[in-house]
């Protein structure tokens, strides 16, 4: 995935260099400034690649002259009144929706915007190619085949039993055959195939030795298995009813996590947003450009869930046959473990990524952390709490300050690196009833 990411970056760079070489008038303009103007004024209705309320602007400089574009953008209504055929056609093609006038933009500004669009246009196709790669993480996360391991362990065990039985059988048959021990001096086959040192060992000791080696290995495997695989769903990335991409929303568009997961700083649950949160944007953002003028099938799912008719005016209430979306829960804590988002997001000020990983890069969200108790506890042992800026910790803070003033380097509130820090663990964060009740 990272390789592809780098590749797309270099391709983009190459594109820019190519563009710079080709066109002279753009040279004077600054695509970077253009992007800012674009984001501030145009992006609410237009995408470069995607259709918003207005058409996608990809390669618009190829379709229209710069002069026409300047006039259109500054005041399209005036342009239409002059009877400009192109202007009227654009107006009619887009359902007669009115684009506001941007009289405040200078020629230079508009040219910068056009430069930006020109620069961005070639990237539209590439973006699509990136998508399939995102599934790699999911494949990696699949669980190992436990049944196979267990069967192997069983086979090993049975083999041992078989060897022991064979040994017993030999002894018994030796007794029955009434041969002298000398006659039986010839070693059995399994001794003969063993290396010298082992073959000279007492068979009983040898058996015990072998069994304990296997036993130890088995125990280690079993412990690891029990601790890290049973009930641990790290990497769990189920298909969701709507293929919502965190990469597009949190990554590409940089939407803040808490815009949608708005209760993370005040509730135990970060909460999956209600669909009307989606509709704040998706009433107008429909990604038609990607689907040949049709609304994206994923966005259509939102509309279907709300029984919303996109052809209706935007301020109309939703329909009467809603079908709530049944998302598949990814992070499942057991019932006996209490977790509160606001404690971590609001009080501790942790970034979401600390536990959830680079969600903004995930096309499909997966469980990033193990969510085992050991994982929780480790973090509580290591992470400092901010006792200075929260009056709740006032007394604790005073005590820490006094302790450091008194004991200096030997203060118990210092971590191994000499940093003064009160960890969550020092303040009772390792106790049972902080999470279990």
């Amino acid at each position, binding site marked *: 995935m990272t390789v592809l990411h780098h590749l797309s970056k270099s391709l983009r760079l190459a594109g820019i260099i190519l563009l710079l070489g080709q066109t002279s008038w753009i040279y004077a303009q600054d695509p970077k400034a253009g992007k800012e103007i674009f984001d501030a004024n145009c992006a609410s209705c237009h995408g470069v690649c995607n259709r918003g309320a207005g058409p996608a602007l990809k390669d618009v400089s190829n379709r229209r002259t710069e002069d026409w574009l300047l006039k259109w953008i500054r005041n399209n209504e005036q342009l239409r009144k002059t009877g400009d055929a192109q202007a009227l056609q654009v107006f009619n093609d887009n359902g007669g929706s009115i684009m506001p006038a941007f009289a405040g933009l200078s020629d230079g500004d508009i040219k910068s915007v056009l430069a930006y669009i020109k620069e961005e246009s070639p990237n539209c196709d590439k973006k699509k190619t990136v998508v399939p790669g995102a599934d790699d993480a999911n494949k990696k996360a699949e669980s190992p085949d436990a049944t196979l391991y267990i069967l192997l362990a069983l086979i090993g065990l049975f083999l041992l039993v078989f060897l022991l039985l064979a040994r017993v059988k030999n002894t018994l048959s030796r007794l029955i055959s009434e041969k002298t021990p000398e006659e039986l001096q010839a070693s059995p086959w399994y001794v003969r195939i063993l290396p010298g040192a082992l073959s000279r060992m007492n068979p009983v000791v040898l058996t015990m030795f072998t069994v304990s080696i296997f036993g130890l290995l088995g125990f280690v495997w079993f412990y690891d298995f029990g601790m890290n695989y*049973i009930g641990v769903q790290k990497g769990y990335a189920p298909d969701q009813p709507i293929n919502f991409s965190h990469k597009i929303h949190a990554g590409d568009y940089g939407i803040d996590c808490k815009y949608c997961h708005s209760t993370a700083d005040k509730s135990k*649950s970060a909460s999956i*947003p209600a669909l009307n949160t989606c509709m704040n944007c998706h009433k107008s953002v429909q990604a038609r450009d990607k689907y040949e003028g049709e609304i994206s099938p994923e966005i259509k799912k939102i509309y279907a869930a709300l029984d919303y008719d996109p052809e209706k005016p935007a301020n109309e209430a939703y329909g009467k046959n809603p079908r709530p*979306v049944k*998302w598949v829960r990814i992070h499942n804590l057991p019932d*006996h473990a209490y977790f509160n988002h606001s404690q971590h997001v609001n009080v501790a000020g942790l970034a979401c990524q600390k536990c959830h990983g680079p969600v903004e890069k995930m096309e499909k969200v997966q469980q990033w952390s193990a969510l085992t108790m050991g994982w929780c506890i480790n973090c509580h042992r290591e992470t400092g709490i901010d006792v200075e*800026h929260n009056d709740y910790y006032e007394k604790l803070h005073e005590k820490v300050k006094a302790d450091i003033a008194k004991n200096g380097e030997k203060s118990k509130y210092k971590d191994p690196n000499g940093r003064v820090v009160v960890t969550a663990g020092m303040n*009772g964060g390792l106790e*049972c*009833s902080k999470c279990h009740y």
Partner: protein
Amino acid sequence: MAPSVKYWKGEEELVKDPSFIAAQKNEFADDLPLAEVLEESDFELNSSRRDFLKYFGFSVTAVSLAACFKAPVRKAIPYLVKPEEITPGVALYYSSTCGSCTVACGVEVKTREGRPIKIDGSSRSNISQGGLCAVGQAGILSLYDNERLANPLKSGGKAEWAAIDDDVVKGLSGIAAAGGRIVIISNTIHSPSTLKAIADFKTKYPTAEHIQWDAVSYSGILQANKSDFGKAVIPSYNFDKAKVIVSFGADFLGTWISPVEFTKGYVKNRIPQEGQEMSRHIQFESNLSLTGSNADLRFPMKASREGVYLTTLYNYIAQAKGGKQIPAATQGELAGNSIKQTADALLANPGAGLVVSGSNDARLQSIVNGINLLLGNIGTTVDMDNYSKQFQGDDVAMDAAVKDIQDGKISAAIFYGVNPVYSHRDGKKFGEAIGKLKLSVSFASGNDETAKLCGFVCPDNHYLESWGDAEPKVGQYHFIQPVISPVFNTRQAQVSLLTWSVGITAPEKDPLADKQIMNQKFETSPYYTYMQNAWRERMGADGFDAKFNTALHDGVWTAPGVAATVPAYATDLSSFGSYIDALPKDNALDLVLYQKVGMRDGEHANNPWLHEMPDPISKVCWDNYVSLPKSLAEEQGIKLGDTVNITAGGVTYNNVPALVQPGQANGTVGLALGYGRTAAGKVGGSKEKSVDSVGVNAFPMVQNGAQYIVHGVTITKGEDSYTLAQTQTHHTIEGRNHVREASFADWKKNKKAGNDEPKPHMYTVWQTPEYRRQGATNHFWAMAIDLNACTGCGACVVSCSIENNVPIVGRKEIILRREMTWIRIDRYYAFPNDGKVINAEHERYEGKFLTKEKGIAELDAAVGKEKGAAYSHYENVRVVHQPMMCQHCGQAPCETVCPVLATTHSTEGLNQMTYNRCIGTKYCGNNCPYKVRRFNWYRFNNNSNFDYHFNNELGKMVINPDVTVRTRGVMEKCSFCVQKIQEGKLKAKRERRTVKDGEVKTACQRTCPANAIVFGDLNDDQSEISKLYRNERGFFVLEELNVQSSVKYLTKIRNTEA
């Protein structure tokens, strides 16, 4: 004085019953119920024990391990349109009014994600004043009762609302046109809007009458006040203003009129404070009631003779005041000249006494009025101007209606909030007569005894699904707002009434519609508009919306009160002499019918929490029984586990469980109303579902004129034996010194009275934990319980169970001592030490109680049976209530014995119980000196053997999502509501401030009507708890064990002289 009183919890302890001794040795009643466990639905192994062990071979383990991989796929379904005020994971509170009885306490309802999960008292309400009783607490489960009617019924079959409306309107119109009488029989209604709806109904159908009738009547008071003062009202009783409280059989702390309000007032003068007199509470009664158990002086009396004693009291007072006496030939005095003493105490506190009577005899209530009037109490402690509207039932009108229905003089009846077929004394005949009606409608929410016989059942919403208002006291309005949309296809009774009369329409503009909320689910009830219009008239249109919304938000709206006055008195008591003389003088037995604190009138008989809650006095769960005095039991040879045959008022019940009840007055027996339901449901009993009734129905024994005292009952020993589920001797603490009490007189001399035993020297091998040191930076959570305030009402028990998802185990398991409640209220009895003294005239006996040294045999011997005062020491027991829960010991014995560290100590002083670590050795339970640990013998949820709320989808809605539902095989115990502590701390942290005192309240503390429980942070020097810990009355139970308990009890002080 060091307390050397011998306390005991039950007779079996007193006489050292072998089964009791054996049980005492074992913390847990039985071995593992392996057979039953294996029979549980999730454990489908039909095999012998040997086979069972075989299954535990390696291969099964391996395969089951492999199966662990398949974690179930769990779904998360967010809102489509999230209501603005809801934050998933954060509780939302609404003000409302409790609808469990007609007292109408203001409540706060806690909801999570749109479902109500807890009800607590609202401090804005003058009725509840922040507390709530057990019945109110348990009311939440009635909402999630899956036996409520899901649809309206027509002739017993499911029907559509529209069809029913058509039929009912046609029927009513026809009857009204023909001049036929229509009656609406309801319980007390003081809701102004409902009364308006009924008035509208009467306008439409002029032949309609409205009769109010309560299953348990207070009409005696109403009638007396009507004849004495010209006002048929129940006054407000101001217990907080009373220095001397005298009650004749009125259980005002438990069941009488408005117990939460009365408890709040009562305790105000019950906490001994420097320079302030404690109130003195004197109780005369037959059954040992909750109120009697809290009295300073309690005198057993024969209920049928109450009139005589009241007359005597009246005459003493009249004599002193120079008034006219009642010319009765019979005068009565009770042991220890108690009537005279009571008169003296009352006379010493003119205008600050309060005499109440539980009798429903209007003449006795008139004498009570006379006493209060002579003493100047009317206008101070008895407020006739700001009167109560909580009970207005008219028995005379009801009896007439019952007769008229039987005679076919009434054509249509609508039953609203009443179940007369069950709870009227003529219920059976009445039920037969319902068939004669042309139209019968019931608004019952379940298919109860009356509803079953009605042509139409139009199920009413639960109050948590309804709009409404209430006026429990004149001028004090309370509001009801829905906190959940109706669970079933039910309709508010008011809407039904209005639909059939004036018609009712949905609000013109739905207030929720413009919020883009899908309107098919969130329809605002049409009754909202109706109610709003009614209130617009009352509040005035000017700024109405804001005023109305504020009132809804607060849950209360109070019109300015009026000053209490002394109304003119119109009765001549001198005519009462002959009536008093005619009261029965013979020695025949009295039966006193009473309400239990949990079950009350039986309306909530299908609520398992109310059955599971032990009766505050007898500690019996899940049953009704005849309580007998020791003398009668001895006479008839009745012992614990026997039954009796009882005949009273022409009704006979055979083989009713019997209980020898200390404190029961000689010559009287008691039986509770509210049991024996035959159409309540799977919990309370249902013929249809072949579920046996819990107990017997005592309503048919009620006497004419709703008299609850039956004279001349016969009791014989029954043939059967029966085991009552009685928790009194479970978890006993083997006669150690765990309750302390002293008299007020001693306390005035020595603030440590009763609590001044020299402290034993303590040794410890443990270090003082950080939180117990000076200048600790963290919290030190602790609790204080004032034994003086605690009345033992049991509200905390129910509240705790709801908050902490404590399972209900049922009668069978309680008999095996497997109840799960985290908090229990230990009730201790103590004997007076000398039987002879009690019966001697002019002598006082209080304070002289049986010591540990003096044996029961000696005492029994000292009591002269020949004097006709047999076993009077049993009659005169003294009672102490002591709530007991995990003491969160600093050096906890349970922690040191846990082999897996499942129970450990926190840095904030909590004894933590970690369910997921527990392997169920039960060592901790065995080692706990307070016996507060509970073991999950079964998985109580999803288990068909425990078919209560944990076992169905709807019932599970009441589960608190912040508390783990425990599984089989783990220990549990009081956690000090750690989820509430954590929530309070987190809120403070989020707001970057310290935790405020009083911010974290445990569930028991939150509901306590007596403010007996205080919880807080001991490391906060200014906190309420720190102050209480400095109180000299404080002691720790079993302090000598040096377990460093975190629950401090305050010595009980009784206002007695010795």
